[in-house]
């Protein structure tokens, strides 16, 4: 199927590739470390990454080189790199594959980032459930340490960089970079108020960079083949390189597909993922994980890059593309996502903590055909009072499914409410109704 060159998934496509150090070195692995450490100035590495146009693959899409540039130049104490492997966004499962199948590619990226920002310690914050992934990474770190790529005086260059795997313990919010840092410090994963940004006050209040797994995995290739090569791939100038899109839902071949940014949703769904699984036509698409607003079949020709998806009213986010076929209830889909957000709200900010619970209860009522017409206004009103009023972007994310389904499929909500009215099922809420808990 792929007519383009694979970058990140290339190695693991080789027959018999196990992801061991030996296999990785055979494909040119750790060449970037050899050619860069002590030979290219760290500031030049940052410049190359900036020139490549690489943007964060975790969700926000912030330019990586620019992020590194925010670190204070004259700071003498320790600096830290955190690899964000807390892949928890519903719809996203790319980092898992990158770590479990080609761990050294990620480690080499981590080492290069450490070198560029002057960090001597890196922590890989991997989500707690991925026990296998953490074991594979730890084994890879041991291999790399034995070969002299990790530890003190790497390859005799006098540069130190140590890498540790730190397992999270099942909290979605710890994918938010400041919550990740809190969690790494052994606390509850509550996002911090920014500013100050992690670049100046991060882990243990020291300058820190947090980068996603996929972002880091791109670094060896950028340094080996040059920023110009990378900048020409995809949809330049603003969305360069490839993206590993995770396709899930009602398609024939769900899974991870690495494609240049800028291909259309139609190409991804119908050519790569094999099209719809049955003869039911496509009804809805989430282009960037649970936090991204839903799109309709009218958006099939939207290009999958940061700008075009944003113009279409959604976001590219973490690259999790979920496809739903005709017949899927959008109220039900919104509720399922809302239950996720309700469960995962960290509870720091009242609008998100209380609002998510209200949204779930209102949606449940509508879906159970006990809704009233004014519920729709209540939903929108709640959304308006959550988005933009919280410490982190979680608040904006949790209202996306409701706002977008109400925008595109309002009639489904209205129909359910009409049914409720027709069946005369509306009863007053029981007095002192117990606040619902969900398992």
């Amino acid at each position, binding site marked *: 199927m792929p007519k383009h060159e694979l970058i990140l998934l290339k190695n693991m496509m080789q027959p018999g590739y196990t992801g061991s150090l030996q296999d990785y070195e055979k494909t040119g692995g750790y060449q970037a470390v050899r050619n860069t450490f002590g030979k290219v100035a760290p500031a030049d590495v940052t410049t190359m990454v900036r020139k490549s146009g690489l943007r964060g693959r975790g969700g926000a899409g912030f330019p990586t080189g620019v992020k590194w540039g925010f670190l204070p130049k004259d700071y003498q104490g320790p600096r830290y790199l955190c690899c964000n492997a807390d892949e928890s966004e519903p719809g996203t499962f790319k980092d898992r594959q990158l770590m479990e199948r080609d761990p050294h590619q990620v480690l080499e990226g981590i080492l290069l980032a450490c070198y560029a920002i002057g960090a001597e310690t890196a922590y890989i914050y991997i989500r707690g459930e991925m026990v296998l992934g953490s074991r594979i990474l730890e084994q890879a770190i041991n291999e790399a340490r034995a070969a002299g790529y990790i530890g003190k005086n790497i390859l005799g260059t006098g540069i130190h960089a140590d890498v540790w795997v730190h397992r999270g313990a099942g909290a979605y919010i710890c994918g938010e970079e400041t919550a990740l840092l809190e969690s790494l410090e052994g606390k509850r994963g509550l996002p911090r108020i920014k500013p100050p940004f992690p670049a100046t006050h991060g882990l243990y209040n020291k300058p820190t960079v947090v980068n996603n797994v996929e972002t880091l995995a791109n670094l060896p290739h950028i340094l080996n083949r040059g920023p110009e090569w990378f900048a020409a791939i995809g949809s330049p100038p603003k969305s360069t390189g490839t993206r590993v899109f995770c396709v899930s839902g009602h398609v024939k071949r769900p899974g991870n597909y690495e494609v240049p940014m800028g291909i259309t949703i139609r190409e991804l769904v119908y050519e790569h993922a094999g099209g719809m699984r049955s003869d039911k036509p496509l009804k809805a698409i989430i282009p960037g994980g649970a936090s991204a607003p839903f799109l309709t079949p009218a958006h099939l020709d939207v290009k999958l890059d940061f700008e075009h998806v944003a113009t279409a009213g959604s976001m590219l986010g973490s690259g999790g593309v979920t496809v739903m076929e005709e017949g899927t209830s959008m109220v039900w889909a919104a509720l399922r996502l809302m239950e996720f957000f309700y469960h995962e709200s960290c509870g720091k900010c009242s609008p998100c903590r209380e609002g998510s619970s209200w949204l779930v209860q209102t949606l449940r009522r509508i879906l159970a055909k006990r809704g009233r017409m004014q519920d729709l206004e209540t939903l929108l009103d709640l959304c308006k009072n959550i988005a933009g009023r919280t410490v982190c972007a979680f608040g904006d994310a949790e209202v996306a499914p409701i706002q977008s389904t109400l925008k595109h499929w309002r009639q489904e909500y209205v129909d359910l409410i009409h049914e409720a009215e027709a069946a005369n099922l509306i009863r007053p809420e029981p007095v002192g109704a117990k606040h619902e808990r969900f*398992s």
Partner: protein
Amino acid sequence: MCSVNARSVERPDRRLDKGMCGGTVLKDKYGKEIDEILSRYPVKRSALIPLLYVAQRDQGYVSEAVMQEIARLLGLTPPQVYETVTFYTMFNLKPVGKFHIQVCKSLMCALVGSDTMIGWIKTKLGIAPGESTTDGLFTLSAVECLAACGTGPMMQINEDYYEQVTEDKLNRILADLRSTGTSALKSGPFMWPEPTPAERAREA
């Protein structure tokens, strides 16, 4: 039962029973591993989650006594440990079955049948989410996204993922677990879709 409660400091009658909670069970048993974990971090508190994992691996859940011990090991107050433990869903505060089945119920898995799968488990084991079988073998939980959306419906049993579960596969997994304690049907290093030979050849 000793209580990890801040008030116990002011209330002598509720002060912890030293004999019960002053133990060094974890330190005695896993001293070397604990030292190794502590060496990774410049600030001791960072080792909290890793140490809780050690405790949970040992007992299957995190008891109050062990929280006390970890607090002492890290120079924290018991409430500092308790507040952290209760934030994270992966720590069990009470014993769970030998096999903890966690089924993903988020939208992406629900689209491909996770609700049906929970139904199968309910019928086969006679337990609803949040319950354990009377023989103490299985506990069922319905959880949020486990990052296997392309290979749903899926579940995690203890440390292992089981993906693209069908009713037949579920039967075999449960039978395997009952007889041998593990199952060969668990996921290995993740890659999906598996490339076809033609695709592999193109990249070689």
